[in-house]
């Protein structure tokens, strides 16, 4: 990470002020393995980890492929996505440091939900700044957070200077992730709370590596060796958490990171230093990026509406150790439908990107008559995205 040229303040120094110490330490660790604190393990257990590794047998049959398809189902966690994996340790370390209150922002709501639950589990308070349009359009996400006991504000709010400034310019501002983040950081600083970060940074990938660690063990238990590993990429934490352990253990021959065609970071992005956040509050990192000011089109896979990819993932893609794909919304809608009809599970639109790549690889294996073992990360379920699916359904019927 580096600070921007002619920085008005040091972003790296800011990290130190807003992040829990242990989280920051882990962000910059070089340890190969970091022990999960017992309290966090208990919390994982309590929420039903390990998540299941399932075989998508009917999908194989529908595709008539010689490939075997397995998936790690992170949607089986109570908050419906992998986000809880890093929310828990971050909240735990906060509490260990005597912090009584954590703050974050959320766009589509999955990260906010995870933080809200983690805070409840370790009995500390949480405040979530939720982008106002999401707050209005995804009331269910807001309801869950509230039921978990968090304070949820529609950002921009009038409880931060930054929010007030935005509102004074436009009373009806719909909000943005950048604004929500700025508000969250300001709110954390002012109250000496801690701010939690949901993706992109190495520490988030580190915490998510429980996905890949579990999956490797589960594959061992059923005696399968993976050939192809696939995940979708928003910031990169679910992909990295899933694929890096396999990569590190040299298990697998092909790793595929799947992004959105509408947000073409892999095909059109540059590899350069850029802000991980659109607010420009965090230190610059070197990554594949469309630029922090890039405005992602409003695709339904809200979690992929991100301009960059985590530095480690970006480097591995540059070094050609990881391949990438980009799929369009109609393609992933079809893939999601096929998967639903085969396995019953409504995938998150984000995860449907991975599914599309899985289907392509399975068909490729069929063409070549190869008995590949494909494993992918189903990072979340799409039960709270059904209104989006309905819109896609209506569109596809026209």
């Amino acid at each position, binding site marked *: *990470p*580096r*600070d921007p*040229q002619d*920085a008005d*303040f*040091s972003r*790296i*120094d800011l*990290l*130190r002020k807003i992040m829990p*110490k*242990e989280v*920051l*330490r882990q962000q*910059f*660790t*070089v*340890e190969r393995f970091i022990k999960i604190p017992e309290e966090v393990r208990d919390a994982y257990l309590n929420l039903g980890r390990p998540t299941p590794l399932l075989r998508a047998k009917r999908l194989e049959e529908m595709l008539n492929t010689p490939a075997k398809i397995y998936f790690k189902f992170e949607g089986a966690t109570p908050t419906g996505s992998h986000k809880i994996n890093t929310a828990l340790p971050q909240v735990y370390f906060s509490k260990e440091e005597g912090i009584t209150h954590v703050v974050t922002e959320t766009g589509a709501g999955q990260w906010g939900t995870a933080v809200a639950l983690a805070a409840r589990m370790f009995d500390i308070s949480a405040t979530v700044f939720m982008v106002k349009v999401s707050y209005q359009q995804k009331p269910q996400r807001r309801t869950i957070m509230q039921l978990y006991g968090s304070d949820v504000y529609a950002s921009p709010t009038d409880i931060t200077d930054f929010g007030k400034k935005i509102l004074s310019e436009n009373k009806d501002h719909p909000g943005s992730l950048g604004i929500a983040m700025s508000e969250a950081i300001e709110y954390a600083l002012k109250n000496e709370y801690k701010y939690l970060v949901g993706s992109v940074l190495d520490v988030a990938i580190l915490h998510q590596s429980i996905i890949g660690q579990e999956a490797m063990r589960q594959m061992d238990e059923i005696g399968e060796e993976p050939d192809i590993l696939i995940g979708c990429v928003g910031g990169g934490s679910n992909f990295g958490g899933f694929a890096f352990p396999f990569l590190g253990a040299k298990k697998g021959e092909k790793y595929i990171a799947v992004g959105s065609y509408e947000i073409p970071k892999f095909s059109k992005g540059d590899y350069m*230093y850029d802000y991980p956040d659109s607010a420009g509050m965090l*230190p610059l990192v070197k990554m594949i990026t469309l630029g922090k000011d890039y405005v992602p089109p409003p695709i339904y896979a809200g979690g992929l509406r991100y301009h960059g990819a985590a530095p480690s993932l970006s480097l591995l893609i540059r070094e050609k150790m990881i391949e990438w794909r980009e799929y369009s919304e109609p393609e992933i809608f079809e893939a999601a439908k096929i998967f639903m009809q085969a396995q019953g599970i409504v995938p998150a639109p984000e995860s449907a990107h991975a599914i599309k790549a899985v289907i392509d690889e399975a068909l490729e294996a069929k063409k070549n008559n190869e008995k590949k073992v494909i494993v992918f990360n189903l990072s979340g379920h799409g039960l709270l995205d059904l209104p989006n699916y309905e819109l896609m359904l209506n569109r596809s019927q026209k």
Partner: protein
Amino acid sequence: MSKWLVSYLTLGYPNNKDFLEFMQSSVKEGSDILEIGMKPKYAKYDGPVIRRSYKAVNLSEEETWKLLKETREKIDVPIVILTYLEDWLPSLDTFLEKLHNIGIDGILFPDLLIDFVDEYEKYVNKIREKGLKAVIFTAPSVPDTMIHNVSKNSDMFLYYGVRPTTGVPIPVSVDSLITRVRTLVENKLVVGFGLSDVNDMRKALRAGADGIAIGTAYIEEIEKNGINSAISLVKYFRGVLNEF
């Protein structure tokens, strides 16, 4: 053999006179090697304190070289220049020749392994061609195998910066970090770029570091209490090193 104290100051900070005085006194109080930072266009990998020192300095090119020459003449311990390769790329040969001509010993580019990793050997050779020593900068983000390889290729010592940036006390586990890197480095190992308190220093030394590089601490001291106080700090750190 006693542990090395590598002391850093930005060229011309806080002014030419005090800079020279700090450099000379620093050697007197026990610095083994001096590092001199030349103000870059963009201090990519420096922390806010070092950056403030750059901002405080406003030397013309002519004044820069004059001051550097004067420093060299007054100092008899090795001098290593710290500056960014990126800045000097257009005139690298001339730059290196000039350094050599005024008697500078070595050069350290913090961006060498980060931004020029694929051609770092080319630049190391170039530095040596021009009669200078190439001190290589590494950090936790550099892969183990590369640390091992470049450590043999670094002149004088291998510089290992433990924190992602200078002067910001990001929490790191110095002991395990240095214990680990010590096994990889076939060379003298100088640890710095963010070491901030003496506990960390002692940990690094106990874990096998051959020396410690200090910079941010001096500048903060100068900012707060002036040059003399910073000179006392050199003495203090020397004392810590002498425990080992």
